[in-house]
């Protein structure tokens, strides 16, 4: 065993050039000395191989799938893949993370990463079976929904265990926020990864692997997994999540009042959609990713519409953003998203915007092809959605995202456009600093890349009606202590304050980057179950790798990863000015539970200063300084920046 990376890593990065139809393999070892796993190596490949200012939907863009070193092992929640490409939504870094059983299968086939280059001249799909990699014709699959695609490919490959990610009609037609859908309903939704695949004429990637993942120290690894599994299973919230999944968080969010309703216009609007009842009536069974003890998703079969899997944002987005109480309509909506491959968060955001514009009289029936746009109305929502997916009439413009649509509707519509860097906002209001800062600083219009560990304290204490006063006090104390430990001040727990937030966000970014790099679900770590801390990650990673990797090493790797990502964005032209929020968040006009609550712009900018300074980035431009880059061992990036004159003074 001469190769030190034979454990955990599968030794190969698979490169597929669709233009020339060539398939090459490269040792993962080239990267894995300095960068860790899925998100870490992905970001570096992106920086190295994407020329600045290319068209995200052009031939030159690449899309990288990266499974982490722990992916496919017994480590709980470890079937994750990180997908990166230059985003057609933002024009910056597109990054989306997906679970399911595809990522583990990729490892079993013998690959850590798959990099897709070029563009096929006709629709194709890629079939990977261990060392056999083929580019096959997919003309017959073009236009097929995700279920039919999986079914057809499985039949063709004559193997029912083939795992598939595919795009639907939305991705084929280049709806900029189209998603990738796995055969069991997981999606890499954000940032338009589906559109990139569509632009390459690539319908699907089917994987089958039988080779397993080797670990250096099996006994030790097994022991650690036993411990981690029992930690996850005894964590608070595990029972709720594994029995009722995200239905519970649905209620929690609703009560906490930090979920905005409509086009981020208000908080609370008389949400009455009864999902628990729905689950009792139509629920089939629990579902989730391979190797995960939580199984946080629900499956439903609804007679007359169809069956599928939903979780988390599926519940919240269409309900709150579109103020919809009709559960049947909700199902039709999420089911369409799944079948045709479109990001449920983005399309809800776009539709909410159109409805508000219509209400405000900025656009009229003529602009919407004769559709009357109303909240929670089937005709408005489903018909407009179909127009977007098929790119008919006005749908063609809305499919291109906010930037193009604002050009079409006129300047006046811009005030209502709720996006960050063109990416529609997540249904969590950025007018709370802990959400807002990360939403502004992150690449995706959401805060799922830096969920504060003590944010749960903020949300729960405010809104969990299941909880008694004593419990709330106890939680405030626990989370207060945690906040103090991380940021040095208990005030960080204050929902509206900025104090301690930048430091907290940096901590959270690191803590989310670590599982993303290792290929573990971030919910296992600080986001939800708080089962893993860097120490646990370091132990299990070391036991698998056969080489000591300390928690500090992981933290440094995570910081390095954030800097590579930021460097990529900076080279694409991201500056401080773009790290901002829609102007509505700085205004008082919102009603509901938090009526009158808004972000103070000066304070907000000050917090950004603090964040950049802590990160070692230039305060004026938000670009990493030479010293920061060199200290992290990123001399090549510093060199590249010097050539391009990007380095801050």
């Amino acid at each position, binding site marked *: 065993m001469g190769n030190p990376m034979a454990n955990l890593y599968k030794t190969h990065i698979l490169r597929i050039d669709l233009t020339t139809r060539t398939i090459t393999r490269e040792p993962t070892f080239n990267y894995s000395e300095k960068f860790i796993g899925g998100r870490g190596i992905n970001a570096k490949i992106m920086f190295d191989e994407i020329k600045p200012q290319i068209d995200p939907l052009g031939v030159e863009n690449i899309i990288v799938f990266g499974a982490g070193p722990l992916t496919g092992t017994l480590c709980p929640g470890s079937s994750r893949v990180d997908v990166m490409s230059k985003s057609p939504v933002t024009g910056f870094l597109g990054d989306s993370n997906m679970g399911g059983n595809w990522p583990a299968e990729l490892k079993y086939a013998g690959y850590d990463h798959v990099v897709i280059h070029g563009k096929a001249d006709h629709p194709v799909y890629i079939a990977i079976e261990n060392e056999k990699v083929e580019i096959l014709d997919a003309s017959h699959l073009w236009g097929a929904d995700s279920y039919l695609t999986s079914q057809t490919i499985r039949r063709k490959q004559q193997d029912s*265990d083939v795992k598939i990610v595919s795009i639907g009609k939305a991705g084929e037609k280049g709806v900029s926020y189209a998603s990738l859908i796995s055969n069991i309903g997981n999606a890499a939704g954000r940032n338009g990864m589906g559109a990139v695949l569509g632009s390459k004429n690539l319908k699907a990637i089917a994987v089958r692997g039988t080779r397993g993942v080797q670990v250096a120290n099996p006994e030790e690894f097994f022991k650690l997994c036993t411990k981690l599994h029992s930690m996850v299973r005894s964590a608070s919230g595990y029972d709720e999540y594994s029995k009722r999944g995200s239905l519970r968080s649905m209620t929690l969010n609703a009560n906490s009042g930090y979920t905005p309703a409509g086009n981020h216009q208000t908080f609370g609007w008389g949400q009455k959609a009864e999902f628990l009842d729905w689950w009792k009536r139509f629920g089939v069974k629990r579902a989730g990713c391979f190797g995960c003890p939580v*199984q946080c998703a629900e499956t439903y079969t609804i007679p007359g519409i169809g069956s599928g899997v939903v979780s988390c944002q599926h519940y919240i987005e269409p309900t709150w953003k579109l103020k919809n109480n009709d559960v049947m309509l909700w199902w039709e909506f999420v089911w369409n998203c*799944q079948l045709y491959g479109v990001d449920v968060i983005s399309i809800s955001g776009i539709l909410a915007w159109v409805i508000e514009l219509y209400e405000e009289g900025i656009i009229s029936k003529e602009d919407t092809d004769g559709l009357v746009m109303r909240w929670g109305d089937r005709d408005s929502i489903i018909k407009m959605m179909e127009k977007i997916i098929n790119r008919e009439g006005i749908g063609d413009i809305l499919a291109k995202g906010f930037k193009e649509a604002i050009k079409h509707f006129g300047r006046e519509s811009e005030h209502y456009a709720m996006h960050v860097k063109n990416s529609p906002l997540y249904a969590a209001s950025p007018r709370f600093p802990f959400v807002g800062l990360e939403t502004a600083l992150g690449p995706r219009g959401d805060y799922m890349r830096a969920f504060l560990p003590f944010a749960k304290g903020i949300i729960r204490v405010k809104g969990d009606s299941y909880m008694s006063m004593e419990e709330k006090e106890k939680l405030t104390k626990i989370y207060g202590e945690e906040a103090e430990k991380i940021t040095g001040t208990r005030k960080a727990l204050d929902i509206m304050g900025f104090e301690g937030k930048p430091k907290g966000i940096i901590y959270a970014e690191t803590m989310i980057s670590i599982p993303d790099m290792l290929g573990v679900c971030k919910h296992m770590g600080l986001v939800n179950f708080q089962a893993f801390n860097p120490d646990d990650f370091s132990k299990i990673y070391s036991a698998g790798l056969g080489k000591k990797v300390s928690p500090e090493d992981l933290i440094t790797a995570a910081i390095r990863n954030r800097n590579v990502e930021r460097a990529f964005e900076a080279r694409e032209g991201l500056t401080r000015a773009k790290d901002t929020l829609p102007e509505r968040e700085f205004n008082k006009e919102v009603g509901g539970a938090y009526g009158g609550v808004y972000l103070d712009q000066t304070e907000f900018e000050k917090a950004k200063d603090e964040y950049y300074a802590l990160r070692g980035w230039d305060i004026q431009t938000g670009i990493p300084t030479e010293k920061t880059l060199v200290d992290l061992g990123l001399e090549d990036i510093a060199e590249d920046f010097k050539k391009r004159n990007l380095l801050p003074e």
Partner: protein
Amino acid sequence: MILQIMIDLPKCTGCGICELACSLYHEKECNPEKSRCRVVRYEHEGILYSIPILCQQCEDPPCQMVCPTRAIQQNQTAHWVTVDGRRCIGCKQCFTVCPFGCITIDPKIGKAVKCNLCEGDPKCVEFCPSGALSIVLPDKANITKRRSFFDQYIESLKKLAPSVTE
């Protein structure tokens, strides 16, 4: 004392943790293909249906009956069935006759491999998060089933005639 792994079909979510635990424990690598306990999956319209299939530790094991070298033996007290690797000649007769497909052939040495209930402490059961796998004593196991049927029966009675039960 006869030990039995009971499979509660509706509870299985197909997560495959049993496969990973088994393969890591016995084969020292994470590979479902090398697990003695296999999850059979079937997807339909986006929903994954799954059944864990593992050795049933038969009372009259066909694998033992056909084994020409007596490599397959039944434990006297707890009745689990094991393969003695030293005696196994790799004739694969057991593989042919097992009605559940639970005898696997080690691709490296060509000999039979099967579940031995981890000598009474099965790892698949220990790790199964959904409760689809549980280790039971057959005489006790039925009590749970009878109970749950009883609960269902009462529920349906309540619906039929609320006054009867209240």
